[in-house]
């Protein structure tokens, strides 16, 4: 539900996978098929000579050494930065505001309601239920519109449709309080606490 760049993830993981797969297959072929070795010497040797030539032609005017090394350093730093940026993209999209609208009334100004309102009210409403092991409420921004994600962890054996209906009626009550229908996702999941905790026997 968050704004993880899924297509980008697929493309980049796929590129890395294909590259590693090709390298691995090449190594195996090099070790087993002699003809591949001949071709490899010719092809890779040509590329190496091209680079050595390039290093020859890019010497510093004053001292020994090629400035191409510095260029390679810079490229590697850029790649490192891009990878950090990619990691930073994962799982973002949390928002702190549930409602942010202009007040149509007499007083000038905006009305904004933080996601803490929804979180506190829902948690309080579900707090003393014996059939739940945990509740988490978070607000995410989907296409510029805030939406709520309610994660409920029932104990073993609780009927999910009954639970969903009850949480959903709480959400409707919340709608009435806030005065706006935000998109809501109810995720009934299982975690360590519901899995290893005692089963719900009496309801």
């Amino acid at each position, binding site marked *: 539900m968050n704004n993880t760049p899924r297509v980008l993830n697929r493309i980049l993981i796929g590129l890395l996978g294909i590259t590693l797969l090709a390298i691995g297959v090449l190594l195996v072929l090099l070790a087993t098929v002699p003809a591949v070795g001949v071709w490899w010497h010719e092809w890779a040797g040509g590329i190496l000579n091209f680079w050595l030539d390039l290093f020859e032609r890019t010497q510093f005017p004053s001292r020994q050494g090629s400035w191409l090394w510095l260029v*390679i350093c810079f490229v590697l730093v850029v790649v490192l930065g891009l990878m950090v940026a990619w990691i930073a993209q994962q*799982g973002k999209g949390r928002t702190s505001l549930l409602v942010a609208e202009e007040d149509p009334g007499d007083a000038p100004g905006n009305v904004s309601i933080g996601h803490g309102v929804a979180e506190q009210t829902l948690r309080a409403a579900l707090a003393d239920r014996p059939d739940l092991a945990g509740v988490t409420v978070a607000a995410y921004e989907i296409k510029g519109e805030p939406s709520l994600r309610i994660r409920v962890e029932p104990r073993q054996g609780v009927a999910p449709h009954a639970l969903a209906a009850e949480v959903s009626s709480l959400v409707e009550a919340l709608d009435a309080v806030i005065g706006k229908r935000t998109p809501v996702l109810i995720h009934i999941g299982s975690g360590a606490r519901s899995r290893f905790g005692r089963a719900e026997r009496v309801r």
Partner: protein
Amino acid sequence: MSQDTQNAGVGSGAHDADAVPGSAPLGSGAVGMDRILKRETHSSRAVVSVIAAALVMAVCAYALLETAVRATGQPPWLVDPQTAAERVVALPAGIGPLLLVVTGAVIAMVGLFFFLNAVLPGRRARHLLPDRRAAVVVDDEVIAAALARRARLAANVTQEQVMVVVSRNRVLVSVRPTSGVPLRPDAVLDAVRRELQDMGPWPMPEARIQVSTAGVVGA
């Protein structure tokens, strides 16, 4: 549906009337809901992405170190980049063939892992439930636990004698009856089916029952 999201909240008490979209399809209620449901039932590959990025970063960091050392004219830490390139070009020589095959196989396996992660649909073990207000996603484990409880009550056995496996299109209920106590599989299956009908998960799985021939003694 997009309209009632935008109109709600403008009127003081009117939103209660249009807060009920009637017999709306699964996961209705807002513009981005389809997108949210799609994203909730499919893996985001965030963990694999972080692993991949970390791998690339490790390789790049080492290459950066050796390149920087070379650029400043210092002696190399492990291997000089140019020597490394020459060794790679001369490859079948300079390393045992068995080691080369094993290295290649390991790298290819890692590549295959990433590639399959990128290409496969990556469905999560979750089902959708109908609801008039919110989109509801349920882990298959929770469905299995609820069905197991229902089957246990119908079969009148203990918790350990029932196992339910829920997959996308199938529910398999395995019961080990108590020794000497007859068990009617049809009744248990009926109970499970009724519970499934009440729940109404999407996609709707088909229930089957498997009663083991060996009973449990003293349960």
